[in-house]
């Protein structure tokens, strides 16, 4: 197997606070291969966004990467000096944020912002960068790009602005795009367009995509693999079809059970009781144990490690030394 574009191993992110250190990411590991879309799903506060920010090196104090490794095509990037990390940001890793309305500087023309980014990373003349900016705007589906390039952000609609943001993220042909809830702030009809755009760009350029969202529908449509996060850990990771059809982790089961189906029988959706623990009060053992219907003694004492299970990997004691048939 070729080297993955992104490889995260046992990542820990901590935030120092007045009431002690909060562990936002607690031993997360995953890989993303070239051209692959990894969906990262979970409730608010599960650590999805923080994982994305850690990869691109934008964890601000009081937060810090407390342990583990992040490798971009084999190069370790979590301990690079700030200036070298900056050169990677925007050039080798592109990022798309949630709210396109606030992601662009309101005082500069969109073209100037794209040209600025291109010229920061690529050795191009002003004219060449401008031509490239027009091409990029055309590629992300902005009509009449040679005219719109001189528009200000407020002259674009939300969906169009997100396209500009995407153009900015891909302007230096990055190997990896981190999309942090790219569709959450958009209309449903626009969401689908943006999703298919991200998918197409990933396919055309062979870019790896880390798609952070809480929308299982988006993941199912876009991703090749999915990581389900809970309280700063990966509960389950695997190919999207397998995880959606046959979730193993009780939390993943709960999540999938909460998706309404069009064809489904008229039954109540599954609801996971309780809510995710606060970072300051993560329970001992498996962090999901207080909400888990299958919890037993071991879950309250020992933290489960990820176990391979076919194509999937699941962090749950239920699958430790127990034949799969007996639990489902």
């Amino acid at each position: 197997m070729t080297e993955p574009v992104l490889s995260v191993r046992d990542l820990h992110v901590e935030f120092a606070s007045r009431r002690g250190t909060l562990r936002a990411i607690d031993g997360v590991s995953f890989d993303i291969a070239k051209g692959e879309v990894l969906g990262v799903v979970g409730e608010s506060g599960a650590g999805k966004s923080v994982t994305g920010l850690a990869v691109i090196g934008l964890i601000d104090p009081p937060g810090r990467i407390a342990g583990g490794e992040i490798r971009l095509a084999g190069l370790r990037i979590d301990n690079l000096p700030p200036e070298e990390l900056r050169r990677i940001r925007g050039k080798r890793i592109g990022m798309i944020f949630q709210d396109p309305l606030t992601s662009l500087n309101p005082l500069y023309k969109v073209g100037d912002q794209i040209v600025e980014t291109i010229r920061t990373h690529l050795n191009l003349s002003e004219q060449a960068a401008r031509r490239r900016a027009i091409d990029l705007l055309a590629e992300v589906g902005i009509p009449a790009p040679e005219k719109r390039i001189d528009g200000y952000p407020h002259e674009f609609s939300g969906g169009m602005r997100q396209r500009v943001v995407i153009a900015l993220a891909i302007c230096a042909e990055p190997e990896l795009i981190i999309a942090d809830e790219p569709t959450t702030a958009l209309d449903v009809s626009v969401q689908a367009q943006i999703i298919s755009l991200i998918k197409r760009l990933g396919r055309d350029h062979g870019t790896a995509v880390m798609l952070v969202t809480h929308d299982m529908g988006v993941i199912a449509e876009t991703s090749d693999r999915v990581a389900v996060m809970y309280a700063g850990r990966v509960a389950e990771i695997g190919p999207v079809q397998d995880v959606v059809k046959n979730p193993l982790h009780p939390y993943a089961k709960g999540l999938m059970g909460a998706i309404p189906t069009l064809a489904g029988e008229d039954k109540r959706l599954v609801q996971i009781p309780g809510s995710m623990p606060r970072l300051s009060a993560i329970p001992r053992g498996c962090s999901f144990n207080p909400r888990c219907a299958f919890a037993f003694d071991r879950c309250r004492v020992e933290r489960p490690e990820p176990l391979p299970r076919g194509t999937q990997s699941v962090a749950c004691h239920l699958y430790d030394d127990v034949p799969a048939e007996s639990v489902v």
Partner: protein
Amino acid sequence: MLAFTLRRAVQAIGVMFAVGIIAFSMFRFAGDPVNQIVSIDTSAAERAIVRKSLGLDDPVPVQFVRYFADAAQFKFGVSYQFRQPVATLLMERMPATLELAICATVFAMVFGILMGVYSALKRDTVLAKLFQAVSLIGISLPTFLIGILLIYLFAVTLGWLPSFGRGEVVKLGWWTTGLLTVSGLKALIMPSITLGLFQMTLIMRLVRAEMLEVLRTDYIRFARARGLTTRAIHFGHALRNTLIPVITVAGLQFGSVIAFSIITETVFQWPGMGLLFVQAVQNVDIPIMAAYLLMVSLIFVTINLVVDILYTVVDPRLRSTVGRAS
């Protein structure tokens, strides 16, 4: 854009009209002007002649229209104490005041922005905390006290700078400037600092607060995610967004710098309009007081207008909303 400017100009004229009414009514409420002009033993007949020559026997509305029409042509009548046209007196004094106000504002802007940006970017350094502490002093110490302290230190004790006056001035047409001579420049230093210190601390604190606010915004985070250099982010993206409110405050403050120069001019015996006004108050010289009121409000209103127009230059969002509204 043009319609916007015109609308603002019409509003400005409205404000000036209101100020004109107030200035005019000063003549009515501050006693009989004739008594200020004539001596005690002037006969009633002579008083009547003076009254008639000044047009004070006409009905009030007529007087008001005449006063306003004259004021619009910068004719403010004759000073009671100097027996000279008020316009001439003001014009003689205006360069001194404007030069002082401009120097004070430039001083306040340059140091205020530099210190503000520094204390926002290097929030936890000793120097940034020192700036914060100093700015508290600047905001809370009254102007005259700062002036007197400066005089005591640099003029009396050290003898480096003159304690009063403008030094040598050079005539450029009707304008007199102290910027071209060494003694004129030296004389400008202390009054400028005294007058500008409050504005400087105000701008510094404003820039710091705004900059911290802007640095937290999504587009700065996105700029960082795009891998722009720290320099480009701080000075290209953050500073420009910071300066929008700073322009307003600095612009509006320029008006109060001119108005507050009364105190600084008194402390430093600076031969400007403020000093003239203080003398006019002492001598109940109403034409000067009224004219000063009109001049200061004209400057205020003009600055407001300029600031409004500048806004649209800096912020493209306003340009289009303004365009749409018109």
